[in-house]
């Protein structure tokens, strides 16, 4: 089930109604049943995969906790890592790696046939696998205690608002909250509904609208012009932010109405002044996961410079691979790794240069300059992310380095008339104000104007845009569902 579907509009109020009516002891059963139903609407048999991953991590965490021997604890940790990552590898990467290996073999004169298994990629597998891994690793390290109640733990893994596209929650944040007896509170309900309204606005009004223009360029790379690629890439940077952070906002809002606070996943990423800062603001739950469970165990920055750069590259390479079984994602992650390494290498020389030129690094102009270039670098990386294949990346880049053609012709090809431009620009301006208000509690709280009405107006716009989308083919799924 997806949030922007009619089924969800029926499902969510029913879940809420019984969640608040049922006694504390049975709440987990209701939420767990609702979460499994939410997932099974898409593909019922794949619920067994979640159950398997849940059972393996649940049992091994208890066995680790019971054991005094470090070797035994390590054995159970390794067994869980191998099992969970094995399942992830099989369903998500088997065809990709087999295809890549066979292509390589044939390139050097081999004659192997294609080996493609007819596998369905389970929605959200990367998200719930990482969530279970963080739990098992934390139990292994002794930073949390193992959960002995299977029901609570299963709910932690499959809690429906964040099951298929995050945020990737940590056990110390979500598990205790799931166990609390939440009552319906007006403050939580309003805050949650407002967050959901903003999320739906991002997805339905901005992302789905922009997707039309982006798809024209990226689905016909050979026909695209330089101007088209530039416009589509800038629009895609807005689309992917609105699509993903919109999903997160809806998830956070859904949980908030129930009194549960999920972690923040985005912090106005395009205000970042460097790529390093961008990753502190973009998909925070994944960035912090990689920091805590990969970057720091590899040695982080407390090692030689060469090793530090290697660690940075590995983290972003793996992050790219996490996003999808396609070389475009691997290249995208690697490019961010290279950005980070170049940023780290040039940090001191840049600081010296700024001092020599008497540049005030905290001035508004310099901040805007840094934000602009960070945005440009991120947009370039989005070309790799959005391109349908490696060969398309080559075509798009070759067109970018040749003459860009006519801007007017490109606008006609994209069907970007004044209404479309106006709606797009207005939506982006509104979005930035909504984000600013959301990020600044003093602005959100101190006004005398009804915030509920503002949220209601946002919801009305979402409804109108939804009707518009239905008239041209309906709402689309969230981009991050494929990961």
């Amino acid at each position: 089930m997806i949030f922007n579907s009619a089924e969800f509009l029926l499902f969510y109020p029913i879940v809420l109604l019984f969640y608040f009516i049922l006694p504390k002891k049975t709440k987990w059963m209701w939420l767990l049943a609702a979460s499994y139903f939410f997932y099974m609407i898409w593909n019922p048999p794949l619920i067994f995969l979640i159950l398997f991953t849940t059972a393996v991590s649940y049992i091994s965490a208890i066995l680790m906790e019971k054991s005094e021997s470090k070797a035994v604890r390590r054995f159970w940790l390794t067994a869980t890592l191998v099992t969970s990552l094995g399942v992830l590898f099989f369903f998500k990467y088997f065809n990709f790696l087999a295809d890549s290996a066979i292509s390589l073999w044939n390139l050097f004169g081999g004659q192997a046939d294609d080996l493609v298994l007819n596998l369905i990629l389970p929605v959200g597998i990367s998200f719930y696998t990482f969530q279970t891994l963080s739990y098992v690793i934390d139990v292994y390290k002794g930073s949390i205690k193992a959960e002995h109640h299977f029901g609570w733990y299963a709910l932690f893994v499959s809690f429906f608002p964040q099951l298929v596209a995050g945020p990737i929650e940590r056990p110390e944040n979500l598990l205790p909250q799931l166990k609390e007896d939440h009552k319906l509170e007006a403050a939580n309900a309003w805050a949650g509904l407002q967050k959901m309204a903003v999320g739906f606005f991002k997805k339905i009004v901005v992302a789905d609208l922009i997707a039309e223009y982006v798809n024209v360029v990226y689905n016909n790379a050979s026909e695209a012009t330089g101007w088209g690629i530039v416009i589509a890439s800038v629009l895609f940077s807005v689309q992917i932010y609105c699509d993903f952070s919109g999903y997160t906002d809806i998830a956070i809002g859904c949980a908030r109405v129930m009194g549960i606070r999920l972690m923040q996943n985005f912090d106005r990423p395009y205000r970042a002044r460097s790529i390093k800062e961008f990753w502190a603001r973009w998909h925070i739950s994944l960035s912090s996961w990689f920091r805590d469970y990969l970057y720091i165990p590899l040695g982080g920055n407390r090692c030689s410079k060469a090793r530090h750069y290697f660690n940075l590259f590995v983290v972003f390479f793996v992050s790219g691979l996490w996003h999808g079984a396609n070389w475009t994602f691997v290249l995208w992650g690697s490019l961010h790794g290279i950005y980070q390494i170049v940023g780290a290498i040039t940090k001191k020389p840049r600081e010296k240069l700024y001092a020599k030129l008497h540049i005030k690094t905290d001035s508004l102009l310099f901040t805007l300059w840094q934000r602009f270039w960070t945005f440009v670098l991120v947009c370039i990386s989005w070309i790799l992310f959005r391109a349908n294949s490696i060969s398309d990346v080559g075509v798009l880049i070759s067109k970018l380095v040749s003459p860009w053609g006519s801007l007017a012709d490109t606008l006609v090809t994209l069907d970007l008339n004044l209404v479309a431009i106006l709606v797009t620009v207005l939506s982006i301006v509104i979005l930035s104000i909504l984000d600013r208000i959301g990020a600044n509690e003093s602005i959100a709280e101190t006004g005398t104007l009804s915030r509920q009405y503002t949220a209601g107006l946002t919801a009305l716009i979402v409804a109108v845009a939804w009707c518009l989308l239905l008239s041209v083919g309906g709402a689309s799924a969230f981009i991050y569902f494929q990961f």
Partner: protein
Amino acid sequence: MKFWDFFLTAESGENFPKVLLLMLIGLALAVLLTFLEHRLRAKWVFLALHAVLLTAAAFLFMTLGAGLSEMLVFLLLYLLIRLGFVFLEGRGKA
């Protein structure tokens, strides 16, 4: 090509100048209502007035044959005005 030829869509057609005029009047009223709501703080009275204005605008848009896309532009501008007030008010108080 006239300025609003860019604007013309299949839904609104030749009525667009009237739709545009209606939009501008609606937005001016939105500014006025929001300003009065901010000054007088009679929350429910103004919420009712906003609702009446939006309903009347929707009715007139439909009468003039405007499409959902024009309605969307109007609502986005309406929201922008309101958010502008919320933002300025918050900054003033913060």
